């Protein structure tokens, strides 16, 4: 036995502790609820000097999976964490990694797959990984999250296994539930248990040049897959041994299956992860009434424990398999399908199996739900007959008498008139007339009040100013983010116009499809010629990181639409993690100012490099789209003019990209009432200069130098809690470097302003 100590931690914290104790080399990650807590905790532990893992903030989950794959081929230990569509975005990388036999650990904090978007837990994501060739552990509680991360590492790295492994815990139910847990008191005992990792092949060994991932067609590929299949068989032998060895060290013994009161059970329930615990209470209640009931779950679903499954259900009369997802069209969830196939292979088995779907999208699972399912199983056992082979529990019909109400009158025609005119002057530059804040109060709002944003949120003044500049009907597409989450909480919507949501990765492409269909249907006469629509994609909260590829693709195709970015300098809707637009060396939940890294972020200071805040307008300028502009709410007239120009361009010339700097008082740690003046300091300090580029000609639309208001960057940084540390004397050099970069970009902008060829 090795000494253990008690901690009171949740699943995400336990995953982070396991990684800390194993001291992985590298983590590539991209934040997504509810797994975000893992990189956040690891950032905090790193700031406290508890581990040396290099934490790499990727551009998206696909990029994170790539970083992890690459790092793992280079021979060290790698960890990642993700959930839901993040997992699906990374999915194509998973078979690449298992097929080339590169171990690592991926914590999947299970959550519903969109859409519609739901951030809560179920098993619809993890079931997509069944065919990827990864080992899949299921951790029903925070204790198992820690233990299985360690056990999975040792099993995965076994020379005859050499497969990557997933440890799955339930989003929120486990990831955010604090429990009493035990951990190794001494981290060296963990490292001793997992041992040295020395893969036979690495991508960074000059003495042994090897080719990872050749071009392999038939007849060879099938042999590669036989090897993978055999590795799974080997893992099936290895995992129980590793669990046994771990038990001897810790006193925590695990089996492949998790069972409760199955000795003589006749009617039972199979379900995965956190629901197991709740269901055991139901078993005790029914046992007291003399019912022979029991529960089964599995701690490992790849490799599939077919022998244990056959054995445990040998004498069971009726079994309800409750899945927290459906394989749509199969009239069952995946566990039900697999268990029935497994029992069919046992010619003596006579268990009656039926399927239920429960708890989708984070719907709670109460003891009463488990009693209901067990009582159904008892009835099937008593009657020796299945009534309903498949059903959902917990769904409801709705109020049949409910009549949808109308909160908006007809908004087509000239309802959204703003009185502005846009014309070209003799130099072919766009001139907007009629912009006055007082008169613009006449423009009806396309977004209703009542939305759920934080007090003082900058997104809504930005949307208000931007849409004031637009005439007529607008179709919006919002990327995932604060602006989306707070406006469309079902069954409500704040939009008085058409609204579409798509995930971060793909909004620009999606809207470009809408635009082209609109024009094609108009051309075919299916939509009347006079119907006029402006298409606007709205992104923020890091949407121009993960969605950058499709945004550039959309720009290069030059569709007639607008991309509007509210840049709040971080991934705010998941609680503020570092984005590429976070000010250099600013604090966030994944770039922590800690004792080991005074005044620096955990990534930027150690083990990684980083550039200064992302210059998205210049990236977009490289695509040569007709219109690019920056706007700030501190300059409302300039703002509305640029919105009107963007609409003109979207109608007549192609793509317009407009970027706003958007206040986030909550995460910037800045008083809500001061936000307009904080934004003003960003403009006056030239951190966020106001300019436009129309058909290649750059114009500075507000020049702080000419207005004699230019201020140093420290004036802006002093207004936000997350950048204040940069003003301390010991960080002088860093502040100077940032100032130099801001000055360099400003001087370059002035040069562009003066020279039409730049």
């Amino acid at each position: 036995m090795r000494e253990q100590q008690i901690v009171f931690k949740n699943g995400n914290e336990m995953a982070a502790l396991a990684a800390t104790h194993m001291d992985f080399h590298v983590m590539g990650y991209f934040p997504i609820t509810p797994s975000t807590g893992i990189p956040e905790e690891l950032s905090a532990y790193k700031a406290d000097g508890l581990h040396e893992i290099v934490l790499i903030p990727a551009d998206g989950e696909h990029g994170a999976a790539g970083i992890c794959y690459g790092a793992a081929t280079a021979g060290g230990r790698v960890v990642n964490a993700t959930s839901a569509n993040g997992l699906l975005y990374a999915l194509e990388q998973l078979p690449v990694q298992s097929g080339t036999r590169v171990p690592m650990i991926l914590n999947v904090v299970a959550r519903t797959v969109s859409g519609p978007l739901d951030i809560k837990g179920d098993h619809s994501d993890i079931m997509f990984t069944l065919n990827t060739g990864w080992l899949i552990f299921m951790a029903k509680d925070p204790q198992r999250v820690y233990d299985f991360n360690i056990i999975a590492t040792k099993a995965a790295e076994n020379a005859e296994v050499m497969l990557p492994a997933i440890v799955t815990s339930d989003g929120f139910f486990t990831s955010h539930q604090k429990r009493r847990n035990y951990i190794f008191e001494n981290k060296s005992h963990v490292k001793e248990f997992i041992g040295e990792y020395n893969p036979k092949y690495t991508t960074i060994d000059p003495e042994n040049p090897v080719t990872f991932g050749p071009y392999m067609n038939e007849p060879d590929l099938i042999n590669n897959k036989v090897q993978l299949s055999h590795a799974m068989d080997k893992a099936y032998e290895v995992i129980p041994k590793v669990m046994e060895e771990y038990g001897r060290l810790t006193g925590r013994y695990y089996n492949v299956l998790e069972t409760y009161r199955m000795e003589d059970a006749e009617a039972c329930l199979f379900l995965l992860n956190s629901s197991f615990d709740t269901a055991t209470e139901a078993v005790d209640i029914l046992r007291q009434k003399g019912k022979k009931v029991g529960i089964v779950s599995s701690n490992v679903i790849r490799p599939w424990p077919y022998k244990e499954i056959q054995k445990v259900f040998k004498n069971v009369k009726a079994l309800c398999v409750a899945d927290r997802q459906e394989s749509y069209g199969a009239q069952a969830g995946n566990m039900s399908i697999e268990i029935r196939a497994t029992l069919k292979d046992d010619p003596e088995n006579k268990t009656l199996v039926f399927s239920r779907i429960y708890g989708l999208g984070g719907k709670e699972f109460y003891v009463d739900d488990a009693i209901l399912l067990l009582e159904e199983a008892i009835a099937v056992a008593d009657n020796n007959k299945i009534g309903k082979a498949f059903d959902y529990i917990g769904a409801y019909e709705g109020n049949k008498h409910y009549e949808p109400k109308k909160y908006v009158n007809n908004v087509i025609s000239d309802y959204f008139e703003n009185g502005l005119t846009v014309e070209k002057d003799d130099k072919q530059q766009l001139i907007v007339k009629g912009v006055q804040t007082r008169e613009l109060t006449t423009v009806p709002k396309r977004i209703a009040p009542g939305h759920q944003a934080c007090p003082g949120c900058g997104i809504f003044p930005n949307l208000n100013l931007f849409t004031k500049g637009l005439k007529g009907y607008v179709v919006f597409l919002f990327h995932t983010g604060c602006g989306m989450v707070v406006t469309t909480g079902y069954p409500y919507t704040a939009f008085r116009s058409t609204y579409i949501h798509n995930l971060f990765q793909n909004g620009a492409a999606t809207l470009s499809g809408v635009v082209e269909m609109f024009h094609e249907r108009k051309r075919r006469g299916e939509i009347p010629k006079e119907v006029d629509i402006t298409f606007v994609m709205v992104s923020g909260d890091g949407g121009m990181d993960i969605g950058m590829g499709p945004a550039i693709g959309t720009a290069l195709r030059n569709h007639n639409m607008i991309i509007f970015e509210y840049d709040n300098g971080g991934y705010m809707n998941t609680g503020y993690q570092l984005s590429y637009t976070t000010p250099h060396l600013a604090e966030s939940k994944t770039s922590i100012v800690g004792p080991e890294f005074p005044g620096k972020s955990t990534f930027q200071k150690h083990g990684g490099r980083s550039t200064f805040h992302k210059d998205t307008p210049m990236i977009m300028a490289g695509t040569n789209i007709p219109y690019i502009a920056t706007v700030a709410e501190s300059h409302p007239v300039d703002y509305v003019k640029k919105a009107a120009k963007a609409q003109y361009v979207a109608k007549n010339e192609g793509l317009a990209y407009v970027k706003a700097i958007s206040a986030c008082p909550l995460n910037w740690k800045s008083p809500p009432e001061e936000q307009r003046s904080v934004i003003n300091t960003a403009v006056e300090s030239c951190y966020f200069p106001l300019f436009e580029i129309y058909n290649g000609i750059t114009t500075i639309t507000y020049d702080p130098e000419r207005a004699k208001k230019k201020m140093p960057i420290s004036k802006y940084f002093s207004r936000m809690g997350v950048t204040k540390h940069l003003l301390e004397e010991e960080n002088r050099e860093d502040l100077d470097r940032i100032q130099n970069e801001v000055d360099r970009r400003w001087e370059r902008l002035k040069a562009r302003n003066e020279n039409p060829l730049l």
Partner: protein
Amino acid sequence: MQKATLPVKNKFGFFEVRLESIGGLGANVAGKILAEAGVMGMGYNGSNFASYGSEKKGTPVSSYVRFCDSDKAVRINSPVTDPHVLGVFHENLVSRLPITAGVGPNATVVINTDKDPHNAREYLRLSGGRVITVDAIKIAYEEKVRMNAIMIGAITRAMDFMDKEAVKEAIRQTLGKKYENQLKANLRGFEAGYEQVSIDSFDEDGRFPFIPFKEAKGEWGYANAPIGGIVVEAGSMILKNNQSSRQGKIPLFHPGKCIHCGLCETTCPDYCFSFEPGMDEKTNKTQMYNKGLDYQYCKGCLRCVDVCPVEALTEELEAEHDIEKLTVKL
């Protein structure tokens, strides 16, 4: 190793606490601290979790704490439906949610209010039970501390078996590291919350019925909802009421001083202002005039006060004004 026995337990062996709040008031952290104190400080087994939406201020949050004897395993992962102690961090929550559901005559309700226990019981429409009131907003203002430290004090008072020192230690562990300079203030707030309470008990006298816990259900279900999750009621968000996001301050509009420049309308994140056309007597032209704001949507951010060039909007204490009368409906 367990320091004291639990005074009461439900049929699963738990003493249970539910905290009802809105994001930003610290109920989540309060739950963590109480649970940490019980498990790490007093040797109980237990669990703590919360239910909330995305990461923002002002939306409803519930936090749960369960304690059981040290040798018992925690085997329930669903929310607390019938709490022994209910903590209410903001009294306006009562109008928004069925927060007293499952709170029976043997429970204790701790509420942040300036009402006395009798009036608080009437306000909450409790069937019976013990009511502990604490004016956390006032104490927070006087002691210059965050409200949740005060609430933790009052809730600790409601849990007679809790070791005060263990809770203080958990406060040190949780808040001490990050906010070292605020730690003293938080401990002071804890003590004030613990001491400055009013306590009374009420029999189940039939004045109000017991409301059992029920899972929420919407109007739309699988038989009538438009397919694909499509929302057909455009603009329906206007039904929401965001008043509980305010924390004591409001912007007050002084029409006589207003120059109708429209800047407040451009800065207001919650689209509260009403502008209507009227005749400008000097120019004989139609102009837009500021009529005031609709407090149903105002979250009290005070951005409008900050941008107003003529002090036609000022920062005031909400308690000193009749919001209903001031409101100009949108």
